[in-house]
């Protein structure tokens, strides 16, 4: 029998106490155990960035981390960005600048840029491009995503 582990964690502000298998990835835990399917899996080997979530405020790859490693952590996923269903400014800017097509990379992009804009509120275009160079998007050519991030930085300044 596989051994189960007790973990307690906060996801998007809500408390969870769960039993998980040792080998369960954080991404699979979020997606299939607590049904937060906004975090996507594009490669499951740490390159595409679709599974990016915030763990204690820092980006992490949900596919490379085990659920047990998130014991006692605070996690933010894409579902935690909108407030009462209202898109936040970054999400809004994604819509304005056509920063998504299929939307599969979008959750990871949003989480990566959430961190960037926290750490560097005045990014240059090059900074944005570098920040998201760990996130693959096959649809958009990235231009709308970059424009959205720059627009938010400018807006937040006002």
């Amino acid at each position, binding site marked *: 029998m596989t051994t189960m582990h007790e973990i307690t964690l906060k996801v998007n502000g809500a408390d969870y106490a769960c039993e998980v298998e040792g080998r369960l990835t954080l991404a699979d835990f979020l997606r299939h155990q607590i049904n937060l399917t906004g975090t996507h899996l594009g490669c499951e080997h740490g390159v*595409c960035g679709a599974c990016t979530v915030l763990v204690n405020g820092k980006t992490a790859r949900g596919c490379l981390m085990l659920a047990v490693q998130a014991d006692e952590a605070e996690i933010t996923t894409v579902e935690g960005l909108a407030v009462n269903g209202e898109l936040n400014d970054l999400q809004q800017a994604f819509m304005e600048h056509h920063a998504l097509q299929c*939307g599969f990379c979008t959750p990871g992009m949003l989480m990566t840029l959430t961190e960037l804009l926290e750490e560097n509120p005045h990014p240059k275009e090059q900074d944005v491009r570098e920040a998201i160079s760990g996130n693959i998007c096959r649809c958009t050519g990235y231009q709308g995503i970059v424009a959205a991030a720059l627009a938010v930085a400018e807006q937040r300044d006002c």
Partner: protein
Amino acid sequence: MSSFGSSAKRVEDPVLLRGEGKFTDDIHLPGLLTAAMLRSPYAHARIKSIDTSTALELDGVHLILKNADLALEYTTTELPLMVPNPLITKPVTPHMLAKDYVRYVGEPIALIVAEDRYIAEDALERVIVDYEPLPVAGDFREAVKRNAATAHHEIEDNVCAEFVQAFGNVDEVFANAPHIYKNTFFQHRGAAHPLETRAMMATYDELSDHLTFYAASQSPHRVREIYAKLRGIDDNQVRVVVPDIGGGFGAKGQTYPEYFSVAAAARLLRRPVKYMEDRRENFTATHHERDQLWTAEIAFNDDGKLLGFRGTLLHDSGAYVPWGIITPYIAASTVPGPYLLPAYEMKVTCVLTNKVAVTPVRGAGRPQAAFTMERMMDTAALELGRDPASLRRQNYIPADQMPYKMGLIFRDGSPITYDSGDYPACHDKAIELSEYDSFKERQKAARSEGRFIGIGIASYVEGTGLGPFEGANIRVAPSGKVTIHYGASAQGQGHQTVFAQIASDQLGVDLADITVIGGDTQGCPYGIGTFASRAIVNAGNAVHQASEAVRQKIIKAASYMMEAAEEDMDLAEGSVFVKGVPKMSRTLGEVAEFVNGKPGFTLPGGIEPGLQELSYFTPKQAAYANGTHLAEVEVDVETGYAKVLRYWSGHDCGKMINPMTVEGQVLGGVAHGLGNALFEWMRYDENAQPVTVNYGEYLLPLASDMPHVQQVHQEIPTPQNPLGVKGAGEGGTIPAIAAIIGAIENALKPFGVRISEAPITPPRLLELIECARKN
């Protein structure tokens, strides 16, 4: 204000941005089981035996299916050839699960169904397969030779189709032309790489003997048809539903073998079964476009007039030809492009190899054709001492020759006729946007700083919007809201928004009150699919026709209801009203309720029941889009890295319904082309073992690789459909490879580097630079 032509924000976005999209793997049905696929580790082998006994003992394993099990479920386990063609001499298609032989690494052998994916993968390792390895047809250039190992043990040689596309008197042209240039091009295109891998889930209802199949498919009706046919059942016993899809780019248009074992498992277990491909499987078992070898000769007169083109194309088909010879056929038909070409001949040979099948990826052979033609144009310009842009411009088909019979016969048997366009004008727009005329100065300044920058140009024509048809089923409910079902499905193109825009103008209804649903075989009885830049032309015009018909029904009923003349009616803001008499108005909801009738009462005045219309649009021929792209690159001659600094697209896809989403399509297409030009390479070793199976080994373009792309549009409507639209899904990719590689060559002119291959990776470019330096 008319919605058509405006950059309306996408109605798809809020849900996706909140992480509330419903992709196949996001759907958790009660009792769901998960499957894993046992795949061949050999490129070519005979399966001597499969022992599943230890795997079945594992706790949580429910079922393991092999070919023999499927033979009980289906009339045959061999998949049909989707696009047959008498030219195909070896119409080989795969089995749903391998039958006795495997012919590429990754070929499905057994399906394992378990409580969850983790257990299914544990079980995978416990299945024991005894293989007898067979000789391998690896590189297609070797496989085409006589006495080469064959990709199937029972065939004599690997050539599976040969054909010629030609017009004009080629021999005479080449016997007399004063300037003839030759070259050979190796071209590799990687795979589609949608960020979501292939996804599918089946659930069976025993009571009604009905299967619901969820699939990330670009072509749901095909899946339904083939499933019903192979099970020998009626198509009302199966419904295919397409949830949200994380990109397709051609690869998800195929009816894959995996669909059938997953559906069978759900039926046998009476429980929902899901299968999600992992990324490694996506590399090995989702179809590629891969390798082509072209030879080309181009002929000019002294004044730079193009006289003729001839060549050969060797095409790697992979182990099976499920989609026939579409890709090489399109490639051979695309070479003439936007040019006045008096004589043309392309001899095509398709060869089987022990690699996964080749089927269309965004562009479908056209990028390779454009590369071949445009590289030859560059060579000619260099040799003739002409500017590459002006040499092209001189040879474009002038606008006053439209419609223009290009000379070839298309695969549907009709002569290829470019219906509309003004290639020189579109070219001029792109040239102006790129400040081409001042580039030489920029280049000179850069060189004086020791930097090597170059510019490249490429033009193309693309047949879009091919038939046979697409349908739309539009309904106005008593709530006043509109529902549109259409037959194809969306993978990120923004169909929900764009189709709603089309209906919104006709019906006078806000976008917010229109729901667009694609990819449900129960919503629209027939459909073909979203590929080949065809959805906007086919489904878009079907939506247009159906909403026009519904509009007429509304007017007719309202005229009866209000006792006013039909010609005095107009529709706006969710109501139908008498022009100039604002009080005389009915909401669409009221009209819908009225035409829904009352039990026992006859509908008056020839009014038809229901504000509803199902309409199909059937184009007579393709609508031809075109464009000219320019790229500016800087090459680091020490590392061989070519950075695309700027990029411009001049594009004509006819009328743009939503310019924002058109630009998005072009942008994504350019990024795909950039990947094909610089990075993407699905490598195999000589035994056809794949060696690039993750994103560390296979590079996709990243944000840091992409330049800012500037676009200019020319909107010459096509006469081929009422909306005047042409497809835009692939145009971004088609010329990009040629433009970028042309720019690299231009940057390296001081070294005399010539590039006859794609992609050109940094190590390879460095090799070419070193080689040129030595000479």
